[in-house]
């Protein structure tokens, strides 16, 4: 397998992992919205309500930065990262 193919394989792996986390917090948990809302979440808000106000939103922010860092590491590993002055 060429270097480029290996790079793409890892990139694709990272994509699936990121999208899996995205799926859980954008779709998965809301399948159980009514059940979850009976428990108390962070700061004392009802749990589902908290996810729609802050939780899912904040997780997406962190997820994108995490993804960007992981992808940079993959690019560096294969020598595909860009020059700094670019």
């Amino acid at each position, binding site marked *: 397998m060429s270097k480029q193919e290996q790079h793409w394989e890892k*990139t694709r792996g990272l994509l699936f992992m990121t999208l899996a986390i995205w799926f859980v917090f*954008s779709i998965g948990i809301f399948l159980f*919205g009514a059940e979850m809302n009976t428990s108390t979440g962070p700061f004392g*808000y009802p749990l589902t309500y908290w996810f*729609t106000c802050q939780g899912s939103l*904040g997780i997406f*922010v962190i997820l*994108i930065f995490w993804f*960007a860092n992981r992808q940079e590491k993959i690019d560096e590993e294969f020598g595909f990262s860009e020059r700094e002055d670019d």
Partner: protein
Amino acid sequence: MKGNFIDNLPKVYGIYTGGFVGFIILMAIGEQMGMSSKAIGICFVAFTVFIYAIIGYLSRTAQADAYYVAGRQVPTVFNGMATAADWMSGASFVAMAGGIYFKGYGYMALLVGWTGGYVLVATLLAPYLRKFGCYTVPDFIGTRYGGNLTRFLAVVVLTVASFTYVTAQINATGTIASVALDIPFQYAVYVGLVSILLCSMLGGMRGVTWTQVAQYIVLIIAYLLPVFWISNKMGAGFFPHFMLADEVARIGELEQQFGFVKNAAADLKSVPKGLAGITKAHSAVNATPWAFISLALAMMMGTASLPHVMMRYFTTPSVKAARKSVGWSLFFIFLLYSSAPMLATLSKLSLIDPSLPTGIIGKSIAEVQSIDWYQNWNQANLMFVSDFNGNGTLELNEFFMGGKAVVLATPEIAGLPYVISGLVAAGGMAAAMSTADGLILAIANAISHDVYYKIIDPKAETAKRLVVARVLLVVIGFAGATIAAMEIQGILGSVIWAFDFAMSGLFFPLVLGVWWKRANKEGAVAGMGLGLLSGLGYLIWVRNGGSGFLGITQLTFGIFGSAVSLVSMVVVSLMTSAPSAATQKMVDEVRVPSGKSILGKQH
């Protein structure tokens, strides 16, 4: 602009922010010294628009690279701010808290959808389109799939989606300008339009970028300051986001106590159009899982297909920067979106809790009708009470409000000085202007670059191309303003349709262009054409009394459109021959971040 302008950005915008805060203080002093509320409103809107116009003028350019992609040198954090302003429309600013106030959980699918979409942008598209080096979204489609037809169809989808969206934004600038400057709406729309064009005409993407950063700063201050102030004034907590659990619970208690009484249809007829009462639980789950998920999903896929957002990531210096920049964009959006539910909570509690001095439920109708702020907002057609059951006391089901009032009226109800209302008007104006600028530019650039330069006259010189681009900008702006002046639909309805149109026609052709090498020209034509047509057909069907299927409504018709788009694109691609070796090699190159971009610097 000097060469080292980029290095000085933090300083420049630091001074700008300080200047704006100074201006707010100046206005507050003015108010104490007896300046009229009308004068304060005019000053806020006129001063901020004047500053944007100066930035627009200073960013003027005669180079295609600067005009289309701001010279590809916008640092990640600043591009994040510009994207956030580009993204958060007048509707987000003025109507979102109101939507949460009235509809609760079912509406909050939009919060999840309008943020979750950025994960798709960051992972599936932005870095690859940046590597491609295109000027516009159709530029990518046209080059990746080849042929003028694909390019043209992409322009069509882009125009349908963005134009639906932009009329709503021009409408919002007109509404705010007409209130703040006290002129009739049909003229105010054109005042709004001229303000919008001042930002983008001379500098194109470069001008829009630097005005959007300035507009973000104004809009975020204008949104957060009242939320924190009201929360502190009510004694609800100095950091509302972490401290409103008791208030949310209290609203739940009051809902139990009052009950949601259903009004008779005859009674509701007397309520002015556009106003609503509180009929849904504040923090309880009041929608089925599919209703919530389908709306969130449609907004997420729409986010990843809207060209005015995507083209912001063409302006970063590198692929790496494009990825990071998506994270910053969402962070800046998060600051406002996570505050909207808090504002809705504070607003609702201050109105319905009888134990608070501002609470009106349980008071006598005559007493409520004599309150100053009630009279003001009743006159502005945003508030209404009526004694349906004739007991002389205001009940929860007898109080009606417009969605905009949550943002616009809450500061006044909570007893904040008028200067805050002026600030909120400037913030709403900034939000609507920045989005309108991004959208008009996206349409004008697509038509000038993809239709005029790439299809009609490929030999045109840069100077001529930029003249065409600017003429189109004005023409599209005027077309949008003319339709906005006719006031056809509500602000939010048309915004959501734009997402559905974009995802119907563009989501899969864009994503598969990067992630599926086998996708070819015929498939892309089918995907865009059939996707858009089926989405549009479904919308028309449901609007005309069609029952729909699978619970897909007129707000989520993009789910049907994009499904048709995906199936037709895959089937047609597989039935026709694979793309050429050169195209496949191009896709391979797009997937590698380093190296030259696919399209040259000046193309």
